[in-house]
C-alpha cells in the first residue's frame, strides 16, 4: 500500500527501488566511515623484533600484556634473517616501525642509516630502576641515548658433562684445561660408539655477519688484549698486540690440530649449534639464550654451564644486550614511549624472560634492578651468566659504527685461522692498519694513532 501512497509524489516502482537502494548504501557507507574513524582513534604502534619464529610467542605475550594494560594495540613483525636489510628497505619506503628490538651492538649501524631518534631517559617512566651499566650500552659516542636497554647477557661454556665425567676430566678453568678437555673429547671416544667422530670445541669461524670477530672477542679479552684503546680524542686500534696474537694462536691451534668440528673455518653460529646438539662437539661457548634448546637436546642432565676459562689476562666474556630503539617518524610517540616504559618495567621484564616456556627469552638477564633473576629463573646456571656479566664482561667498543670494524676484523681473523702457517704478527699488523683506516673514515681515530 505504501507504493500507492507515494505515487502522487511522482515516483515509479523502479525509481522507488533505486531510492531505497541508494539510501541503504548511504547508511552502510556512513556506518563504515564511523567504524574507520573509531578504529583510527584507538592507539596503535608497530614493533619489529630481530628474533626467529621459534620464540615468537614470547614477543606476543609481551605485547598482549601491554595492550591489556594500556589499550594500545601493537602490530608486530619479527625475523632473524636479513633484519637490517628489511629496515633499510622500510626506511627508503618511509614505512618504518615505531619501535625496533635489536642488538645493542647494532646501534651504530642503525644510527648511520639515520633512522634513530634520541631518547631522554628521564622521559621514560621507571628509567631510574634500570642499572647504570645497561644505560651505558645505550649511549652513543656523541653522549646521547638512542635506545632503552631491555636485556643484558654474558657468555659461558656449555660442556658435555656426561662425556667429561666418563673420561674423568676436571671442570676446565683455564685455557690449558679447555685445550686438554678438547683433546680428550676428540681422541678418547667420549660417546663410546667406537668411532672417531667427536670433537672438542664448536667454533664459528665464518666471516658472514662478522662471526669470527664476535667469537674471538671473549678470547681476546681473556688474553688481556682488546680491539681498540679509547683516548680522549678518539680510538687507537690495538689488534696488533701480542695479546691478540696469543688469542688467535690458541684458537688456531684448536682448528689446525683438528680439535674443533670439521669445516669450523666456514661455520656460522647456525652451523655450530647443531654440532653441539647432535653430539659432534663437546664444548660450546654461547649465551644463556641457548639454555632452553640445549635442555631439549642433548638434554639437561648431559650439559653443564661453566664460567668462561681464564686466559693469560684472566676470566673475560663478551657482554651483549638487546635494546628497544625509538625510530624516526614514529606516528604516536607518546604510545611508543609507554611501550618502552612497559618493556623495562618489572612486569614487562618478567614476561619477556619467558621462564618455563622452553622458548628463547627476549630478556635474558633483566636490566631492571627490582627484578631478581634468581627468583624468576630459579636455576643456578643463570647465576653463572649473571656473575660473569657483573664481574668479567666487556661490551664491544663504543666506536661510531662497530659493524664495519666487526666485518674487517672478522676477515682478518679468518685469514689467520684459515692458514696454519700464517705469520700471525704480520697479518695482525696489516689488520691494524685496516682498522685504523676505517676508524679514520668514521672520524674516530685518535691523533696518537695517525
Amino acid at each position, binding site marked *: 500500500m505504501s507504493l500507492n501512497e507515494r505515487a502522487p509524489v511522482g515516483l515509479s516502482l523502479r525509481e522507488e527501488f533505486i531510492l531505497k537502494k541508494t539510501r541503504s548504501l548511504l547508511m552502510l557507507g556512513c556506518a563504515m566511515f564511523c567504524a574507520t574513524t573509531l578504529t583510527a582513534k584507538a592507539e596503535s604502534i608497530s614493533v619489529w623484533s630481530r628474533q626467529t619464529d621459534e620464540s615468537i610467542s614470547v614477543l606476543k605475550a609481551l605485547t598482549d600484556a601491554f595492550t591489556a594494560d594500556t589499550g594500545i594495540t601493537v602490530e608486530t613483525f619479527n625475523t632473524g634473517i*636479513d633484519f*637490517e*636489510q628489511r*629496515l*633499510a628497505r622500510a*626506511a*627508503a619506503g618511509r614505512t*618504518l616501525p615505531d619501535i625496533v628490538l635489536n642488538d645493542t651492538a647494532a646501534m651504530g*649501524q642503525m644510527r*648511520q*642509516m*639515520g*633512522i634513530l631518534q634520541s631518547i631522554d631517559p628521564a622521559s621514560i617512566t621507571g628509567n631510574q630502576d634500570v642499572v647504570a651499566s645497561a644505560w651505558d650500552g645505550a649511549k652513543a659516542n656523541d653522549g646521547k641515548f638512542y635506545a632503552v636497554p631491555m636485556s643484558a647477557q654474558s657468555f659461558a661454556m656449555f660442556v658435555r658433562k656426561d662425556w667429561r665425567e666418563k673420561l674423568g676430566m676436571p671442570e676446565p678453568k683455564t685455557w690449558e684445561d679447555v685445550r686438554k678437555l678438547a683433546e680428550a673429547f676428540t681422541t678418547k671416544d667420549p660417546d663410546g660408539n667406537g*668411532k*672417531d*667422530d667427536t670433537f672438542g670445541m664448536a667454533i664459528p*669461524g*665464518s*666471516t*658472514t*655477519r*662478522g662471526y669470527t670477530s664476535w667469537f674471538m672477542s671473549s678470547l681476546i679479552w681473556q688474553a688481556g688484549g682488546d680491539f681498540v684503546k679509547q683516548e680522549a680524542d678518539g680510538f687507537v686500534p690495538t689488534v696488533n698486540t701480542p695479546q691478540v696474537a696469543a688469542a688467535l694462536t690458541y684458537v688456531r691451534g684448536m682448528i689446525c690440530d683438528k680439535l674443533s668440528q*670439521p*669445516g*669450523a*673455518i*666456514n661455520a*656460522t653460529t647456525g652451523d655450530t649449534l647443531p654440532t653441539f646438539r647432535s653430539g659432534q662437539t663437546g664444548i660450546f661457548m654461547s649465551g644463556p639464550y641457548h639454555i632452553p634448546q640445549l635442555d631439549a637436546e642433548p638434554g639437561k642432565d648431559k650439559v653443564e654451564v661453566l664460567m668462561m676459562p681464564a686466559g693469560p689476562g684472566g676470566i673475560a666474556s663478551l657482554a651483549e644486550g638487546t635494546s628497544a630503539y625509538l625510530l*624516526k*617518524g614514529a606516528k604516536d610517540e607518546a604510545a611508543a614511549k609507554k611501550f618502552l616504559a612497559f618493556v623495562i618495567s618489572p612486569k614487562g621484564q618478567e614476561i619477556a624472560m619467558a621462564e618455563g616456556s622452553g622458548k628463547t627469552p627476549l630478556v635474558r638477564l633483566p636490566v631492571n634492578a627490582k627484578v631478581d633473576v634468581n627468583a624468576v629463573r630459579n636455576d643456578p646456571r643463570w647465576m653463572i651468566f649473571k656473575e660473569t656479566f657483573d664481574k668479567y664482561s666487556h661490551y664491544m667498543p663504543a666506536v661510531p659504527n662497530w*659493524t*664495519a670494524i666487526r*666485518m674487517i676484523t672478522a*676477515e682478518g681473523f*679468518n*685469514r689467520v*685461522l*684459515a*692458514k696454519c702457517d700464517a705469520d700471525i704478527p704480520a697479518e695482525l699488523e696489516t689488520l691494524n692498519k685496516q682498522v685504523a683506516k676505517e676508524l679514520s673514515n668514521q672520524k674516530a681515530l685518535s691523533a696518537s694513532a695517525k
Partner: protein
Amino acid sequence: MTTTPQAAPNGAAGGKRLPKRRPRKTPLSTAIIPWLFLAPALVIFTWFKFYPMVSGFSMSFYNVQFYADSEWVGLDNFYKAFDDPDLRLAVFHTTIYVIVATLGASVTALCLALFLEGPARHLRIIRTAIFLPAITSVAIIAEIWRILFNSADYGIINATLGFLGVAPQGFLSDPDQALWVLILMSIWKSAPYDMVIFVAGLVGINRELYDAASVDGASPWRKFWHVTIPGIIPSISVVVMLSFIRGFRIFAEVYATTGGGPAGSTATIMTHVYKVGFEELNYGYASAVSLLLLLFTVALTLVHMKIKSRFTV
C-alpha cells in the same frame, strides 16, 4: 585488381558477409595491438626489472642514505672500486673461476655429448639422469657438496681418497683448495646443460659430410676436427657465452658453501657486492661495482658476437 592478394581468396571463400566481419585493419590498430598484448609483461618488467636497474644506476653516484637525502658523490664510488684491494682479489678469483669452469664444463659436456648422442632409448635415459644436476636448486647442490667434501677423515670424498692412500684433505676449509672445489661443483652442475646444447648441435651436422670424409679416408680424429668442430661452432659459442655470463655473476654457490672464506680465498665479485651492500649497507658503492660488472658483461658479449660473426661468415 582492387583487392589485396590476401583478400582475394578470402572473399572468394567467405561470400558477401566476410568484409563486415573482418574490417580491414587500420595502420594504427596494427601498430597498437602487439603492444597491448605485450603490455602486461612490459608493466611487470618495468616495475621489477627496468625501474630497479635505473634506480641502481642512479644510486651508484650517491652516498645512499636511507632516511635522509642521499648525498651526491659523483664518480667517487667508481674511483673507490678501482682502488679497492678486496675487489681486486675478488675479480682475480672470479676470473680464474670463469675461465677454468668454462673450459672444464665445455670439454666435459662435449665428451658427454659425443658419447651420448643418438636416438636409442638407453641413451635417452642416461642423458636424463646426467641432466638432473642442471635442474637441481643451487642451495641443495651446495649442501650436498658440503657433505661430500667434509674435511673430516670420515667425509665421503676423504674416506674414498683414504682407500687410495691419500691423506685427508681440507677441501672447502683449505684456502688453497676451496676455489677449486667450487669450480668442480660448477662443472658438475653446468656440464649437463651444455651437453644438451652440444647434442642439439651435433644432430644438425649433415651426415653426408662424415660419409664424404670416410670416402676420402679420414681418420676419426680428422673427422672430429674438420667436420664435427666446425659444425658445432654456433653451439660452442652459445655454451661459452652463457658460461661466461653465468660465471661472472656467481654468488649462490659461494654464499651457501664458504661465504667467501676461508681467508677470503673464494670471495667473488658478487659476494663482495653482497657484503658491501647488504652487510655494511653501503648501497652506493655496491651499485657502482654492480654497474661496472654489467658494463663488462655487455662489452664481453659484444666482443663475443664480433668474433662469432667472423667465424661463421
